[in-house]
């Protein structure tokens, strides 16, 4: 142990809590997992970095994809499965996509049992809206604030379930007893004091790592914590190269660049136009989607009411639309502030827009002085979501580390190379519930409370305090800003071998600089210190993203290589798997996708 002699016993002191299931993260997946684990009788602890109810789930706007069939009775899980797989360019784990499509309706109806109030059809049922890549209007929603409704419903339901909630607490390391997980150590953000959880099972529900990118829709919390924790604990990561850039983020004014503009704008009739007023998406329909996409404006506009028509190209999956916008701007056909126009003002009545998109109306009015009922919005791609993450078993959400589970954005597999809008909220519910269930079941099967490793606790505590003693004078905020530049410029929407190699070198330099990062002040609610600690994980996960992107020499979904612009049939068959080897080195291997049963493979072909 390399304990710093200047640290006193008081410095290293920690409090201890004991539970059966520790859920890390309190967005949709974490809350749903905690509710389920608790319902199974497990003593459940829920830890989150922010206050309860503030997680990024509140930013989800458009809706929850579930084949309820309330608007289009033709819809069913098979169509949803097909749409999800095709949206993911068939890189998805087929079993996760099947479970997701089958169970999403029940999970949505369950929210209604817990008090959620979705918008209604004329018959009094849950209304569903159109979204990119979905054959039918499928998204259960509440205006454009569906995520808020979901997180508040889960939060209020959880309050009465006897779950111990630890707010503003950051988990820094998982503890193990031999091969199995046995606990976690972290710190209270308020006091900076350490806290240890002794547990039988851990569910990671920490979301993605959008904060590694400069233009992002994500908040400070999205620093890849769960991905890093899992990797260091011996779990595997897959699909790390698959990063979703949402096509429509705000681009102006500069201070709001990246803030999400919901896909519902297009789902509810909005259309993308370039500086010449041309609906350019018709020029970017890939062969993969040509048969199901309208090729005239008349057919595209008719599709909203008549599903025998083909879908508007404005609602192609997000990867396609983001690349198209990127190309239009590069070709000099962009809007004044480097985006394109998103126009609903000329296509729908003002009253309809205010009713369907109240948050968007408010957001543009307040932040950009734009009235979206009269003026087109300026939008451009923003880093939004990670398809990649922790590799889990499809049915149980279990990682290869006994007792360690993962659900939601932190887990990988469901979305393959690209996630469809609306499939995230349903993912959180379906796999949050499963992770909670199987974590509780695992905990029940543990004969004893596993032991925690005192040396690991002390080492971790020393590591966390190290930035207070650095003399190097590097500012952690500057290092973070440089990481954002690196990932944005070199590992962004369009990638090349040369730039990815440059990024790896830059990540190495940033790691060296982080060792010299100096934290000012004391341990009491110190964001500079928190940033220095978050940077360690962000650099590790950024390296995994970059290495994976370098290895996948093709273009697919959320990974576009300008030096390999086409899809490669070889890479259609493999996941890239990231591990830490015995020497602490990051290793990458190609592994074949699980084989899909013939009856499911058949669903992918044909009309629908």
């Amino acid at each position: 142990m390399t304990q710093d002699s200047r640290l006193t016993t008081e410095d290293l002191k920690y409090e201890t809590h004991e539970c059966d299931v520790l859920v890390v993260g309190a967005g949709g997946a974490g809350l749903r997992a905690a509710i389920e684990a608790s319902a199974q009788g497990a003593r459940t602890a829920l830890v989150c970095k922010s206050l309860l109810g503030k997680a990024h789930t509140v930013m989800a706007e458009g809706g929850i994809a579930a084949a309820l069939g309330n608007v289009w009775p033709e819809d069913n899980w098979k169509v949803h499965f097909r749409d999800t797989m095709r949206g993911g360019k068939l890189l998805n784990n087929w079993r996760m996509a099947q479970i997701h499509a089958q169970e999403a309706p029940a999970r949505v109806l369950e929210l209604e049992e817990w008090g959620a109030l979705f918008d209604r059809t004329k018959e009094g049922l849950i209304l569903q809206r159109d979204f990119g890549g979905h054959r039918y209007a499928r998204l259960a929603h509440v205006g454009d604030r569906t995520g808020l409704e979901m997180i508040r419903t889960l939060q209020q339901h959880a309050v009465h379930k006897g779950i111990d909630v630890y707010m503003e607490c950051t988990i820094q390391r998982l503890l193990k007893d031999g091969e199995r997980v046995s606990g976690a150590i972290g710190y209270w953000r308020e006091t900076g004091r350490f806290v240890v959880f002794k547990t039988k099972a851990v569910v990671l529900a920490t979301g993605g790592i959008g904060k590694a990118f400069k233009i992002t829709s994500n908040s400070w919390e999205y620093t890849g914590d769960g991905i890093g924790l899992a990797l260091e604990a011996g779990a595997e990561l897959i699909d790390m190269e698959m990063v979703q850039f949402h096509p429509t983020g705000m681009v102006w004014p500069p201070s709001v660049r990246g803030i999400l503009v919901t896909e519902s704008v297009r789902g509810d009739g909005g259309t993308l136009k370039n500086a010449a007023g041309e609906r350019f998406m018709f020029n970017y329909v890939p062969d993969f989607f040509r048969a199901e996409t309208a090729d005239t404006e008349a057919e595209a506009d008719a599709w909203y009411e008549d599903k025998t028509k083909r879908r508007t190209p404005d609602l192609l999956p997000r990867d396609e639309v983001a690349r198209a916008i990127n190309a239009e701007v590069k070709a000099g056909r962009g809007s004044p502030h480097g985006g394109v126009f998103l126009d609903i003002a000329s296509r729908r009545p003002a009253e309809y827009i205010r009713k369907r998109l109240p948050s968007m109306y408010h957001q543009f009015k307040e932040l950009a002085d734009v009235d979206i009922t009269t003026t087109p919005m300026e939008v451009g791609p923003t880093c939004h979501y990670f398809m990649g993450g922790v590799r889990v078993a499809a049915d149980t959400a279990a990682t290869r580390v006994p007792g360690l589970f993962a659900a939601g954005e932190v887990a990988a597999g469901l979305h393959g190379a690209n996630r469809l809008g609306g499939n995230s909220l349903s993912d959180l519910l379906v796999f949050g519930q499963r992770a909670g269930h199987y974590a509780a079941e695992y905990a029940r099967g543990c004969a004893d409370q596993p032991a925690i490793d005192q040396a690991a606790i002390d080492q971790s505590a020393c590591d966390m305090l190290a930035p207070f003693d650095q003399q190097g004078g590097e500012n952690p905020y500057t290092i973070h800003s440089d990481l954002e530049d690196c990932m944005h410029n070199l590992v962004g929407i369009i990638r090349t071998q040369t730039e990815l190699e440059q990024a790896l070198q830059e990540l190495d330099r940033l790691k060296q600089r982080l060792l010299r990062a100096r934290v000012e002040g004391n341990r009491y609610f110190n964001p500079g210190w928190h940033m220095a600690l978050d940077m360690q994980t962000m650099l590790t996960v950024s390296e995994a993203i970059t290495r994976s992107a370098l290895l996948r020499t093709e273009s697919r979904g959320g990974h576009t290589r300008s030096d390999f612009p086409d899809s490669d049939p070889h890479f259609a068959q493999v996941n890239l798997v990231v591990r830490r080897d015995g020497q602490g080195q990051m290793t990458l291997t190609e592994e074949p996708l699980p084989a899909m049963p013939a009856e499911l493979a058949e669903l992918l072909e044909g009309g629908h």
Partner: protein
Amino acid sequence: MASQVTMRVWRGDASGGDFCTFEVASDEGMVVLDVIHRIQETQAPDLAVRWNCKAGRCGSCSAEVNGKPRLMCMTRMNTFAEGEPITVSPMRTFPPIKDLVSDVSFNYEKAKMIPAFKPRAREADGTRRMFQEDVDRVQEFHKCIECFLCQDVCHVIRDHDRNKRSFAGPRFFVRLAALEMHPLDTNNRLELIKARAGIGMCNITKCCTEVCPEQIKITDNAIIPLKERVVTEYYDPLAWAWRKLTGRASGMEKGDAATHS
């Protein structure tokens, strides 16, 4: 266009503190939260502030800007007169933790005392049928982002700390109204609303409505209807007589659920 602004930011903790002055550049379109972040990045790295979405959705970055309860992420810098210093301080109604971060646990404790949603039986066909016009008014309450600015501004607890024991505050009247008016809910919370939540202490000055960033008409649509229900239930002589005769509460809209009283 970049301009230089003078920010006076409260720094301190439970033991006390004071305003610190920062000269900082503000770019076009910036909001107060952007300027606070710039101070953090360049001048005071340990300046404590809560924030998440930076788009007015999560309700984390509540503070008092020039004395007014505001979300820092939705307060544009160009709304202030040029050259005037801008003061930013934590919400005063809650105990300070550090700098702009205050201890809002009061609100999480109050949330626990509200009995959960309890739906009535399903329709005969197994569905839940509700019509848009029936859910509209409750959806207004569900817009609440729990920024707690209404709690901060409410003088019942802002100026009288001891009232916190017996008063839930506007946020939780909104929550209670959402449950009371939910088309499916069957729980009866009138006793709670009257007694432990202390709705009678609100004298409808509408301060909460004025600061709500979601423009929820807290006083008109939530608090006043709840007050009316309490009056009908407890102070209406006819209702009183009905209760005496039948042993049943008279709350009409919740009648089927109130028989346990």
